[in-house]
């Protein structure tokens, strides 16, 4: 709990409402918010084709710039860039909607910790982002003549699910750290471009020192290394562990940021972040 003005248990809640039940309700609310923002028309007419076009663009561009040999490298990497769009940029909606509709007071005074509430509300983004990614990859692969490669990549789709989670907490951390400073639009976009540049999705590691250094701490890079190592028959568990560590690191950052935000709001008596 982060404030003294915590609400009593809701009448509608089961008598012995567990933490899991409350978190599940928060996730259900997140799903309703997601559906309100991502209408079926927007999802099928804009978000889905955008991902397909991103894969086509980055794979073809890399083939033009670095030769056809690099297209497989770029195809695997472009999937992370698609996830970055749906997750790093997508989850911004959670804190930003609270800011727009002045609902953060409800979140911070609830019986459930605001950190858990916000993380639960974010969950639809990685789940839907990963589901969309599978469809987008399946559509894009034959269009760039890489169906065989996509089928070889398929057993590693679960690593992309992990990357979807880690990128979502990156987006949440970025948005919550900046929501009070009117930079909540810029921060996720900046993070998204940093992922594009530093995750090794397109630029192979070892080319630019500072790009590699940033990539080491950002989600996406190690997960992608794990996929590539696994497909080449090299050890991949270490890279996977580093991806989990990066995700946990940004989860802690997001939690701290929500905690600071809630404490500040409680102390000042308002949730006006403008």
């Amino acid at each position: 709990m982060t404030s003294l003005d915590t609400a009593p248990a809701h009448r509608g809640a089961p008598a012995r409402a567990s933490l899991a039940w409350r978190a599940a309700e928060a996730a259900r609310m997140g799903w309703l918010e997601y559906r309100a923002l991502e209408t079926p028309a927007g999802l099928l007419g804009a978000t889905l084709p955008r991902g397909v076009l991103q894969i086509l663009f980055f794979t073809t561009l890399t083939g033009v710039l670095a030769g056809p040999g690099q297209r497989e490298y770029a195809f695997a990497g472009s999937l992370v860039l698609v996830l970055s769009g749906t997750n790093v940029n997508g989850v911004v909606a959670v804190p930003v909607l609270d800011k727009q509709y002045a609902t953060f007071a409800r979140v911070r005074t609830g019986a459930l910790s605001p950190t858990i509430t916000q993380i639960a509300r974010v969950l639809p983004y990685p789940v839907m982002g990963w589901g969309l990614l599978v469809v987008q990859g399946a559509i894009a692969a034959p269009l760039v003549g890489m169906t065989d490669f996509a089928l070889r990549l398929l057993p590693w789709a679960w690593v992309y699910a992990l990357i979807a989670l880690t990128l979502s907490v990156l987006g949440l951390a970025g948005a919550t750290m900046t929501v009070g400073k009117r930079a909540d639009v810029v921060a996720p976009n900046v993070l998204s471009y940093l992922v594009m540049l530093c995750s090794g999705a397109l630029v192979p590691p070892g080319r630019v020192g500072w790009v590699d250094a940033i990539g080491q701490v950002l989600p996406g890079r190690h997960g992608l290394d794990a996929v590539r190592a696994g497909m080449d028959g090299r050890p991949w568990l270490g890279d996977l562990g580093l991806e989990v560590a990066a995700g946990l690191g940004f989860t802690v950052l997001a939690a701290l940021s929500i905690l600071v935000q809630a404490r500040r709001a409680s102390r000042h008596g308002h949730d006006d972040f403008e």
Partner: protein
Amino acid sequence: MSGALWMFVTAFRMEQRAMQRNPLLLVNSGMLPAVFLVIAVETGRPEPDGAAELIVAVMLTALWGSTVWMSGGVLRRERSFGTLARCVSGVWSPYLVLLGKSLGATVTSVGAILVSTGVTAAALGLPLSVSHPVWIAVSLMVLVCSGTALGALVSCLFLVTRNGLVWSHALMYPVFAVGGLLIPPHALPAWLRWAPDLLSLHWIKDCLIDGATGGVTVAPLGVAALLTLAYFSAAGFAYRRSVERSRKEGTLDLA
């Protein structure tokens, strides 16, 4: 100064001021060209004679991204701020306000993109040369006009949807992929090689490369100018029709 011109200039200056405080300027006109240029160069470093083409292609790609979000968002922002109804009920044509604002956004974007691309290219050690400064200046003027027209056209699209932000994301990559900017037309599938010809930015790319490398051919600039006029006409028609429909249905701010 006549009333119409005064209104146009005021709209231009107002949008420029608003743009200077818009964080998306930093993202779309600052970061996007820098990141794309670093990726393009470090993925496959170009030959010295191919550097100009790469820099110009990145610049124009960034301009399209910026057009979608900045000048293309003019009417979306008018609707969000509740000022659209005031615009379309003024004495002068609301299209003048749209064009003035679109021009203001495009000029600011082009300036930011030129700075960002130039600084990044210099940091990457890419050779920067200008063989025909006058030709480059003329091409940039056509580029600004074309960006203004494209921005007005995209802006009108957002009048007919409530999901403007979602569609903004989706509009970027079709042009990135098949606009003939970073990916040359010969790398596209045969059935798509006509697509870049419909985009003025593709023709302006040839003009700017000519200005940087030496040869000057007028034809691409002429095609770009004609396409720009077509975009202006289409935007004017679309805006008039959208406003008429919204007036009839009484949904101007909720269209």
